[in-house]
């Protein structure tokens, strides 16, 4: 009897392992990973029976590089920033994707045309457009609140600590825009030594008031703790803090820098077929629109735009909170992958040196 029980248990366990396929998806954690689990993972499992394991990382690019170089890949799908994805693709760390796996838009537009320009590359499919912008604590500025990126750098009119991401990217662009450079001239300006000088000089004006953050979860926390009165950060995180947690944060989209973020498949992913299936599933018009219910990042497909309705609380209109809404794009800069791929080593070195110099 006992033997039979053991045997049947073992068999059922075996059967389960055989039928239940599993893929591992690595992303950034926090509210963003939650939105992916709700919009992609759960429906995908419900439809295909393939379990999706969600793995968090500070920046998934680093562990993926390590896994591929060590020849021990455990992740099937990875969420990457655009610049990292392009670079890793060039270095052969990612699988090349056939655009044919992408479904056409709901209105029948071919996928390659339905996605925003540049959103699909050799190894990468963008799912969202996210923005680095700034937010302030409304209780600190009841009258004459800041409205432009120049106000962020104006500590005389708006006294108090500032927060910025520790790194050169985005900060230099914002500094130039605050200094009066038009968005479409920013990168041309940064190509010149004078432009770099000017950007660092502008950053220098508020260096003494700066608290540098590193993880995306930090800016809303710094604002909530009263450590800073204004900080740059990811718009989706500000939105979550303001809407779901009721914090008195107001976002300013003037001078925002936006870019793509999306999915890629690491070279040698263990469950290639299921990974492709997941990619197809999670980049449909509807799936991308669904994700926007959970976080205020713009879908990377044109056809998803009209389907975006209310936030999951059922009353907040998502449109005005998206970085891609027309009102928010009046003075906005698309991040240049080409610029940063060449210059990030040099400018980050310079940034680090600038940071530690007194």
């Amino acid at each position, binding site marked *: 009897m006992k033997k039979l029980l053991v045997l049947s248990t073992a068999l059922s366990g075996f059967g389960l392992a055989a039928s239940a396929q599993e893929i591992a998806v690595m992303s950034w954690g926090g509210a963003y990973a939650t939105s992916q689990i709700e919009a992609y993972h759960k429906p995908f499992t419900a439809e295909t029976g393939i379990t999706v394991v969600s793995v968090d990382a500070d*920046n998934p690019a680093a562990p993926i590089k390590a896994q591929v170089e060590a020849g021990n890949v455990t992740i099937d799908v990875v969420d990457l920033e655009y610049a990292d994805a392009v670079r890793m693709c060039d*270095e052969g760390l990612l699988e090349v994707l056939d655009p044919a796996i992408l479904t056409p838009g709901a209105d029948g537009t071919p996928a390659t045309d339905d996605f925003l320009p540049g959103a699909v590359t050799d190894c990468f499919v963008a799912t969202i457009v996210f923005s680095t912008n700034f937010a302030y604590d409304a209780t600190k500025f009841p009258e004459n609140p800041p409205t432009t990126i120049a106000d962020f750098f104006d500590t005389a009119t708006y006294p108090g600590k500032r927060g910025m991401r520790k790194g050169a990217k985005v900060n230099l662009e914002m500094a130039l825009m605050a200094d009066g450079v038009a968005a479409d001239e920013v990168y041309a300006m940064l190509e010149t030594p004078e432009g770099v000088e000017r950007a660092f000089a502008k950053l220098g004006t508020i260096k003494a008031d700066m608290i540098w953050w590193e993880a995306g979860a930090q800016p809303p926390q710094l604002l909530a*703790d009263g450590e800073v009165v204004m900080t740059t950060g990811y718009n989706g995180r500000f939105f979550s803090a303001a809407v779901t947690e009721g914090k008195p944060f107001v976002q300013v989209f003037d001078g925002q820098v936006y870019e793509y973020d999306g999915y890629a498949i690491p070279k040698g992913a263990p469950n290639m077929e299921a990974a492709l299936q997941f990619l197809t599933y999670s980049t449909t018009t509807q799936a991308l629109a669904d994700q926007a219910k959970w976080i205020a990042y713009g879908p990377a497909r044109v056809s998803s735009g009209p389907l975006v309705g209310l936030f999951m609380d059922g009353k907040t209109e998502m449109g005005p909170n998206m970085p891609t809404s027309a009102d928010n794009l009046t003075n906005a800069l698309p991040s240049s992958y080409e610029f940063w791929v060449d210059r990030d080593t040099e400018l980050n070195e310079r940034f680090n*040196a600038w940071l*530690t110099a007194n």
Partner: protein
Amino acid sequence: MADISASDVGLLKTSDGRPLKSALATAQQRSKRRAFLLVLPLLAFIIITFIIPIGQLLHQAVYNDGFSANMPRTTAWFVENPPGTVPDDIAFEALALDLKDAAAARTVGVVGTRVNYEMSGTRSLFTSTARGAARLEPPYREALLEADAKWADPNLWGTMRQVSDAYSANFFLAALDMTRDVNGKIVPMPEERQIYVSLFVKTFLLAGLITFTCFLLGFPIAHLLATLPMKWSNLLMILVLLPFWTSLLVRTTSWMVLLQQQGVVNNTMVALGIISDDGRIQMIYNQMGTIIAMTHILLPFMILPLYSVMRPIPPTYVRAARSLGATSWTAFRRVYLPQTLPGVGAGSLLVFILAVGYYITPALVGGASGQLISNLIAFHMQSSLNWSLASALAALLLGAVLVLYWIYDRLVGIDNLKLG
């Protein structure tokens, strides 16, 4: 000693005529073999988890085949032609064919990244040219220059020559704020990009300061621990060990709660009227935060060796000194303190080495000015993905710690180290 064993003892024989030495060796062999088998798992563990990774790290710091492995023809051309040779048609042909292959193999990004480390702004030159590489037709010189005029830049060719050798000291140079000019001469980095040397210095100064504050705070506590009656010293010991049982992150974040501008300490001082609401002190996200939090975290590593040295020092030594005419200060300085030196040395070395390599705490509470060299190593491991530079920095840090260890051994003697 050796002479005696060779001549005199060598003559000794056992009763059955075998040389005594070999008889002894045979007798001991069995137990030696057993002892070796017992330590074998540990030895294997250390080799696999410690020796090999460190070897790899040191190798990675001087080895990067990103260029040579993916650009074989161009690399061969550099070998055949001495430095300073103006690139000829053969060179351009080699380059173009390599680029075609690299583009097909998706390795051109690796090549571009490698060159970009030495010469900023060249990565996209490789990747964009590679995208159109399939269309390159002879004559290749003209084709390449048409794709991008930068291919004619002698500086670029000089840099490519440098990186064509997989073995390179350039990462160590970079870690020391130096670089090579077009002619391969070692020159300092431009001033606005110099960072590592000053950061090494700062790391060692901060670690020294943290060690010193740990000593100042830890010495009296260790003394109390060693001299209080058992029931009180046990309680105190638990308080000392309590941080050990708490997660490092929890401890660090609790310092954030305490020290931030709207934190407990500032709020209390404002409430007591010591400082005004506008005059809240910035105690975290700067050097002070790093010092405070790390002193707290590393304090037990100072206290425990001190305690283990102080505990067995009987009070009679100080009494003897006093009876011999020494004031209490002289008795402390001349008699008590010197006897605690092994503990002071062990604690200081331990705290200093840990502090020099600390990473999480400065990352969380250090802000911009409280960053240590490990934070930049982490930056290159995780963000810039320049692992060779990270390895070079780590190797320098390792070397510096070994040098310190050696100096300590020469000054104090490592056998004087007492950890507990």
